[in-house]
């Protein structure tokens, strides 16, 4: 893989919450602003050692997915955002997951500040809940209905035309 240079880091080691280690190429790691920040900080200090970044909130199976995404996007980093092949890949990538995985992936993307992955997950979730009933949405996100029947009626009334 990448050769080590004396002036900057080429690889970092990322540790998942369940203590698995992942060796990540710098270009791939830079897809996450959190990892990039760590690398930049270390480079400023002029260290040549491989650094270890612990991620206490991300399990190894989710981290694998985030890194898979980062790897793919690092390959296309120089392309414009409208690359059709990449868009297709993104869609196929998310399609495979159940809601629980999607949920953890979204949280990990948020935590690791991988904005494009966060955006992608949120868009995917938005598309999938768009036509669901209120009841189904509460179920998916485990939300309790805290409205009184009167309040509920009032809100329905507020946008009566929209519920037609």
């Amino acid at each position, binding site marked *: 893989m990448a050769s080590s240079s004396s002036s900057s880091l080429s690889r970092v080691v990322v540790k998942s919450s369940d203590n698995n280690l992942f060796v990540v190429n710098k270009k791939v790691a830079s897809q996450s602003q959190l990892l990039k920040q760590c690398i930049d900080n270390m480079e400023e200090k002029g260290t040549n050692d491989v650094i270890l970044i612990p991620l206490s909130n991300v399990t190894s199976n989710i981290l694998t997915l985030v890194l898979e995404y980062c790897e793919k996007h690092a390959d296309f980093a120089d392309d414009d955002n409208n690359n059709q092949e990449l868009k297709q890949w993104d869609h196929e990538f998310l399609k495979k997951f159940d*809601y*629980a995985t999607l*949920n*953890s992936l*979204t*949280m990990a993307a*948020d935590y690791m500040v991988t904005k494009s992955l*966060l*955006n992608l997950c*949120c*868009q995917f*979730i*938005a*598309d999938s*809940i*768009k*036509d669901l*009933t*209120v009841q189904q*949405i*509460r179920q*998916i*996100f*485990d*939300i*309790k*209905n*805290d*409205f009184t029947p009167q*309040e*509920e009626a*009032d*809100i*329905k*009334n*507020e*946008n009566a*035309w*929209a*519920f037609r």
Partner: protein
Amino acid sequence: MATFPTTIFAEILSKLPVKSLFPMKLVCKSWYSLIKSPYFIKLHLNQTLISNSDRYLLKSSIGAAFYYAKLDLPHNYLSFSTLEHPLEYEEVEVFGACNGVVCISNYDKIDVFLYNPLTKSRRKLPPKRIPNPEKDCVLFGFGYDSKSDDYKVLRILQGFSCQKCCYDEAQVYSLNNNAWKSVAFVSKPYFFPFADCHGVLVNEGLHYIVSSEELDSQQRKMIACFDLRTEKFSLMDCPLNDDKSKTEWEYLEFCVRELGGCLAVMVTYLVKSYAAQMLPYLDGDDVRNRRLLRADLWVMKEYGNKESWVKLFSTGKPVGVKLYCTCIRPIVYSKDGRRVLIDIDCLEVGWYDLESKTYEKVDARGLPQTYYDTGYFAGSLVSLEYKPQPIKITKNKNKNKNTKKKDSDRFLSAGFKLKL
């Protein structure tokens, strides 16, 4: 199953079209207050504008109701339905659209409303008198000023006597102040020659074609821009047109539009038509008096830089158009940017393909056949009622969960009280 923190729910919900958000208010109290919060309304608006989604086409006419149709649907026809509005009479004139809000009036131009067609939120502007309704020309323009976070309406009044502009004034309405104030008019000798060309919003400025006696004699026009931030007029040149030696035109028309966030000018070259020679009763203004030679659509790629005018396309009467076709107006890009929706003679719309240079008429279902002005808007939750106290947003920050919940409860009950 695990749930999300509010910030992520906000991200998810911000990606939904306005109509899908209404039922989401019923999920729980925190979603209800989130969706109603100014923070979310802005987040959602930005999201919609960046992704260029939730777009609607608008049709207004003297002879018919107000119609809208969703754009970007998988099928290739447009399905129009009537749009309720707060005006007294059925027919509507649209002065502009911005951030999901339209500025509308009846054709008398006295009662003017800002109106969000999807949420039905509205604000009636303090009415302004027109001194000589028969003769005066009243133009409007509507847009958003990011500097003062305010929506503004420009109203221009020109009085004509013997075809000469004899008095004029300009006022700006601010939504924040809910009041009109006078502003300096574009300097003489310029005047606004078109009574139905309201301000075209680009780069937080309203654009109008202006003329002067001197420009008229040279068959030229200029563009006046009213900057909503500074509330001042300035002038800029139109893109160059061909002189008569290159294109043998008899009539030359300029029309300012907005396209993909850029200032655009349609330059139309026309000649006297065969029909005009056969039918002597046609007067000079009758569209059948003219035949289209060519229409060039110019786009200013970099706002304010006159070197950046680019000719996006140039077309004669597109193949397949059965109308006279003297008036071609761009409306909006297709989502992929490869086609432009164009309006022909205010009677039909269709996609002009920038690559193949072909035209395909779009079937407009549910729309009575008549002349329409066509515009578009993006769905938003922007509210035009008096702004709610900004307490909510500031209190939500740096507070623990319990206080936050109490705040939202209080806000919610306040909302209900207001309704009663």
